[in-house]
């Protein structure tokens, strides 16, 4: 099937630009890492997964740095990679697998956060992927609804719906927690 493989090698030239601007990349990495990690944590609720995803995203960015460095907002590009990777990782898992992840032999690794904040981000990570991404971009990155829509590649109306549903879920969850909690 297909032609000879030497046809492939004859057409390909490796551009020199792939090796330039590495020092720029390292500077970009050092400036962006913790902020991107915060976004990743917001959508995964797990420090280990977040670090993996961020590392993979920056590695992919490094490979494309010659092109990405020319973008208006390279950090947005990395952020999109992170959200895509997080979404791919958690998509279609279902609650069974998530419960396993919670109670399996490898427990979720959380950041050292105050309890209410830890509970909030755990609840965000349990939202549907697009809702969690919208919450992360809206709060953690402090983007406007319009910018969240651009970043997620959807309409402003869809972002509003995602945020509204996320808020509804989170509010209900925390209200129930307050109603039931702490009868020790």
């Amino acid at each position, binding site marked *: 099937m297909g032609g000879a493989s030497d046809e492939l090698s004859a057409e*390909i030239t490796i551009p020199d630009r792939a090796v330039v601007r590495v020092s720029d990349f*390292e500077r970009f990495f050092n400036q962006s890492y913790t902020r991107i990690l915060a976004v990743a944590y917001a959508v995964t609720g797990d420090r280990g997964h977040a670090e993996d995803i961020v590392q993979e995203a920056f*590695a*992919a960015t*490094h490979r494309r740095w010659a092109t990405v460095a020319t973008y208006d907002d390279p950090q947005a590009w990395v952020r999109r990679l992170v959200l895509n990777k997080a979404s791919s990782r958690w998509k279609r898992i279902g609650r069974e697998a998530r*419960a396993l992840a919670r109670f399996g032999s490898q427990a979720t690794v959380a950041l050292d*956060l105050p309890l209410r904040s*830890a509970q909030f*981000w755990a609840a965000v990570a349990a939202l549907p992927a697009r809702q969690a991404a919208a919450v992360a971009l809206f*709060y953690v990155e402090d983007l406007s609804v319009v910018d969240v829509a651009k970043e997620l590649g959807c309409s402003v109306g869809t972002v509003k719906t995602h945020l509204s549903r996320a808020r509804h879920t989170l509010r209900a969850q925390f209200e129930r927690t307050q109603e039931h909690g702490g009868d020790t």
Partner: protein
Amino acid sequence: MTDVERADFDLDGLAREATASLHASTSNLPIPMAPHSSRGWRRPTFAIATVVVVIVGLTFIVRRHESTPSINSSPSLHWLVTDLPSGWSATSADDIAPQPSVSDGASVQTKIFATDAAPVGPIISIEWAAAGKAATSLQPGSYSDETGSVDSVVNGRDLVTATTAVGGRVIYVESPDGWIRIRGRRVDDATLTAISRDVTANTAGQLTLNADVIPPGMSERPGWMLEEVDPQIEPVAYSRYLPGPDAASVQGPRPFINLEVRPAGSSVFAWLGLFAETPQPVAVAGGGGHFIAHIGGSESSTAVVAWTRGSTEFLLTGERVDRSALLAAARSVRVASARQWQQLVDAGPNAKPARNPCSLLTVEQIATATGLSVQPGTLAQAIGETAFNMCTYAVTGPLTTIFVYVGHGQPPAGSLEATETRGEVFVTIGAQHPNAAFTPIARQLAHIAVAAATD
């Protein structure tokens, strides 16, 4: 200001507070060395994460258009496995209600070319952005299972070639308005490159392709629904099966069988699986379109069987279950009676807990056992559960949080946690950052808590 931007005060305040804490916490973490390649960067992968990722990758089924004998076209999603390995039993069931989709439609369009042997045999997919969509998932490096990425230029266009986890090949080619991804399984590089040479996509979402470069015997399969969808917009019924208590002592991942049942046409089985594993056809209930795939190339790891029956789609996942046992389980699924199903739902994690988990231990008991300062408990949901089966206590010191979980049926295993079972009730005591010294303390607390739960 819109309704969305005018957020509820309390929730918005909590979100801002949590955001500030998150930034403060990540800012205190050490920044690792900048990456220079994707290899060597990955942390040791968590076993469960591997299972999850591969299950995600494998959950694909082809809705073939030839007639498939319908053995039982009941629209019920409540099916149970009736032939289980010796000592195994059904332990819980759960229903997930559908949510309406808020999607603007798929951001990625896909053409699939395959032979009549599909899903076995050569397959090519071409993906491009839908009209007006950013389709960021098509960017090179979007999938973590790609390795050996090589940048090049073909016909003046940027091109990235990489290898997928199971040896398939992927080529990203830059089109004027975004990237196009061409993936192949059992298709050589020359064919993929020939496709990439002329393929283009415009902002109207139209793809131009030289059909002459598609290999003989392969044809487009427009009937295959290959949209990515969020599982939470679909109804799904889960049932779970576990071995007897003796298996708890086995090292490594706990064996389990999990059955997910959804309405056919929900497109829950993602196209990702086409290129994540090489499926093998198996007969599950007469007719085609069924396959089994083993994860990690070993029959001792996780395996998946996916098939359709009438208007229902099935996905059976087995961890540490051999192929013959999993196939026997797949062939034995039967519609559950309402009573059978309800009994399993009542035994599952979302059943109403018999006792409030915050009432099983006092702050003083935890403080005495741990020697730590303990804050009052707060009811919480475990990830993926809707019921408040857990109580969390903030504590001083590296454990950060101690939780008490009360459940029914077979408890999950956790190496640094402690679980005590009495009858059908179990209590698990865990911590956010458990360590070996915590385990005997957890056992002591679990002993007290399970007694309280069943008194």
